[in-house]
């Protein structure tokens, strides 16, 4: 599903360049639950952003579902964000002006889904996550754990093939964190969603099947 060949990422710095990622080659299969680990500044987030098509690699080849990502235009990329990729952020990044219901509905809106279909999908998710009672609240009225729950709900509502999560539990208490990780596990096992998460915590990483370690931009094997 995901295949990286010699991916590097660098930024211009003075007369030279600063490498963030060097020669990364890796493969992630459909249905896998992968954790990316590594110390601060090792390039974890950059790798995740490249995987999630939020950022382009400087060198190398990236095949997402067998198509070379570098050659995709903006429109195709947006297409993938709408249909194949879901994101969960450390800081939740819910849209403050929208209610829980509306936040979850937004990806479907961008997808151009019909109103009736949207309603049933959002209702299903609310039901499944047990947050029906909170649907008319605004993000600021929720606790961190609840916000992240909505964040996950928003990520999966459009039934993506893969979820990229950047330290999804970084701002949460351990109890809340466990809930979220269990949810990921369940999504991975029951729904067959591929999950790629960046994490600092060995405990969270253990929920996954495989750990990819990064150090100073190199794959640490």
């Amino acid at each position, binding site marked *: 599903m995901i295949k990286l060949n010699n991916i590097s990422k660098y930024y211009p710095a003075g007369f030279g360049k600063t490498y963030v990622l060097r020669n990364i080659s890796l493969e992630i299969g459909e249905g896998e639950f992968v954790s990316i680990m590594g110390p601060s500044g090792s390039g974890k987030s950059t790798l995740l952003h490249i995987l999630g098509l939020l950022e382009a690699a400087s060198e190398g080849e990236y095949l997402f579902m067998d198509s070379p990502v570098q050659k995709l235009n903006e429109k195709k990329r947006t297409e993938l964000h709408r249909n194949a990729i879901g994101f969960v*952020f450390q800081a939740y*990044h819910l849209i403050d002006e929208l209610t829980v219901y*509306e936040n979850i509905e937004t990806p479907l809106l*961008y997808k151009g889904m019909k109103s009736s279909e949207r309603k049933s999908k959002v209702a299903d998710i609310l039901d499944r996550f047990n947050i029906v009672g909170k649907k008319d609240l605004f993000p600021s009225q929720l606790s961190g754990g609840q916000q992240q729950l909505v964040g996950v709900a928003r990520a999966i509502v*459009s039934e993506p093939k893969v979820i990229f999560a*950047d330290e999804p539990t970084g701002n949460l208490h351990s109890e809340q964190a466990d809930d979220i990780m269990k949810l990921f596990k369940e999504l991975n096992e029951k729904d067959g969603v591929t999950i790629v998460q960046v994490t600092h915590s060995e405990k969270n990483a253990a929920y996954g099947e495989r750990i990819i370690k990064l150090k100073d931009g190199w794959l640490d094997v």
Partner: protein
Amino acid sequence: MLRHHLLSAYRNLKRNKTFSFINIGGLALGIAAFLFILQYIGIETGVNQFHENADRIYRVINVDKNGESWSELEPGFAARFVENFPEIEAASRKDNGITSGVVQNEENDLSFREADIHYVEGNFFEVFSFPILAGNASGLNEPNTVFISKSSALKYFGDSDPINQNLILHNQFGKTIYTVKGVYEDMSYNSDFDMDMAFSLETLKNEANLNGNGWANLNNLDSQFAQTILLLKSNTNVEQLEAKLTAYRESVSREDDGVSFKLQPLTEMHLGASLNDPLPTYGNIKYVYILGAIGLMILLIAWFNYVNLSTANSLKRSVEVGVRKAIGADQKSLLGQFLMQTALVNLIGFLVALVIIILCRPLFNEMIGKDLPLFAHLSPSVWLIGALALLLGTLISGVYAALVSTRFKTVETIKGLAKSGKSGSFLRKSLVVMQFGVSVALIFATVVIYSQLDYLRNKDLGVDAEQMLVIRGPAIYGDNFDSRRNAFLNELASQSMVEKYALSGAVPARFYNFRTNGFTHPGSKPDDKYNSYAFVCTEGEYFDTYGIPLKAGRTFTPEEVRVDWNSNSKVMINETALEYMGFESAQEAMLEGIQWDERHLDIIGVSADYHHLGLQSEIDPIIFYPQQYGQFFSVKLAKGDRKKQLASLGNLYRQYFPGNPFDYSFLEEDFAESLQAEQQYGLVFTTASVLAILIACLGLFGLTMYTVEARIKEIGVRKVLGASVASVVALLSKDFLILVVIALLLATPVTIYLMSNWLSDFPYAIEINGWMVAGVAILALMIAFITVSFQTLKGALMNPGTTLRNE
């Protein structure tokens, strides 16, 4: 999706209250100003356009060798034109102010002094398309007929049918009876011809109705008192006709004065063809342009606020944009979302503007000196242009704000690394400079206008205007008039409240009796006979009553003013006339006297100069001619209860002159009225500058807020390092004040140039001095500083502990 955009936009506005208030408030003021001015321009450009034959109607204008032009023509030309030039379908004349007098309805004993009444050609209502409410347009072809406006009908006849009733006109042509043959809809703001009554000019064909005023003979080619309007046949070559008419004029004119005829299209009679059109117009195209520019600038300032605040705010919203992109939003839907917000802000602004318009209409009407209805009837094209301008501005400001807000790379926004671009901040700074440049220019202009007004109001006129009551003499005479007048004057003299009084044919602030030339003396140069002198026909008490000192000689005796016009041989002159005539001294003038064509006149006295017409024109050379019983009674009142004084004088007046309206004014008010145009300018510029600076400051306030927000950590660090509140405020304010200084440097020279130009039209004007420049600069800087310091102080006073904490 649209609903989603609308909801997001609405909630966003609700959350960012300051942002919304500044933008909506500013836009509402800007749009209100714009709509007011659009309406004004629509009305001004629409004047006279409604006549069915508008494209075939032309006004004949005299243009002399110096390019001076005027619209009064010798009345004898009209018929001759029609007779000689087949391309002219009809000619229609309208006098230029010889009709005014007292109109009386004898039946119900109502009489009023009327100024806006005119003699017009019988075909007037056929050539023009003023709506006729009663009677037949051709009804004015008969002598002794009159058409009256709807309001006049109500005023003189109440509810009864005015048709075929009589009105008596008492004016310089004596007492003449007219029969009402038509009633027309009130002429209003869409017409330059604005008359309450139209008397048939035909009436003056009868010598008996001229009352000895031979100059008014309708067939004459000597005295210019009527506008002549031509209805041309379709497809007439106007330039050729102008040449033919001019050639014809040369062939019949007795003098070779080099005057030529121009034909001014009716459609250009109000504003002219362009700024450079030299022909006389009723309106003022310059004013239209100035107001238009001001309206647009105020609206631009409001839109600049929107652009500035949106782009300054874009950093704050960048995370939202990034997230939306990550969950599948494309550029189109993001632009849509931001445009929706712009549209919403503008729409709410527009609605508030409508409320402002409804509330501020009286102020606006005062500004333009017209009484307009709430939404005047305007051509659709004006509204179309207005709507387009509003849409275009909304679109441009919205698209720009949207582009800036959505330009961030998703990943940067999510990481919190997004930075506001350099280009955006340069644009913001430029827009602030423009906003303050315009505001400073308007404030400066206001200061200059009011300084000039103040100067004109307070400059010594050379005339004692205080407590000076000017009463119009009676126009309805009746039996034993002479004895009643003398009795009235005796009564007047015996009143304790009357300090002095004088009778004269002309009074200060109200033009002269007339102007004429042909004065020479042995020492004068050949061209001196073309010098024009103003005539004031008066009795001798004029000078004492008005406090005008005599420089030499004496004033007229009661015997001298009683002498018949043509037998008189004594005049007085003012100092300017003395100079014009080229005399070395008053003594020389009084010794030599002066020749007026064939007549020799003794100069018996020389008066000091005074500003007869106020300060908007140079002092004219005046010849005072002895005449008794002028139409103005000037009464110098003792200080006291004005209401009581007026009431008792009114009673006296009505007792001795029954049927005559007691019309009076105070000289001080008459002079003040002559400054009306300048007062209007003052009001317009005050309002405009208040609006401009208010909207600009709203924007500045918002910008400072965002800047302080963005730099709050830096402020915290500086405070931890020991920076004082004052130094932090100075640091934060400096950037903005520099912009205001740049605005000052740019706007000041331009404004000085423009306002010097304006002042140069006045013969007596102030000079723009360093104090004004400094005053405006200090004012602008102070306003800006106070605006900015609300936020900078708040930022500087904040506890670094709060601001530096990482959440």
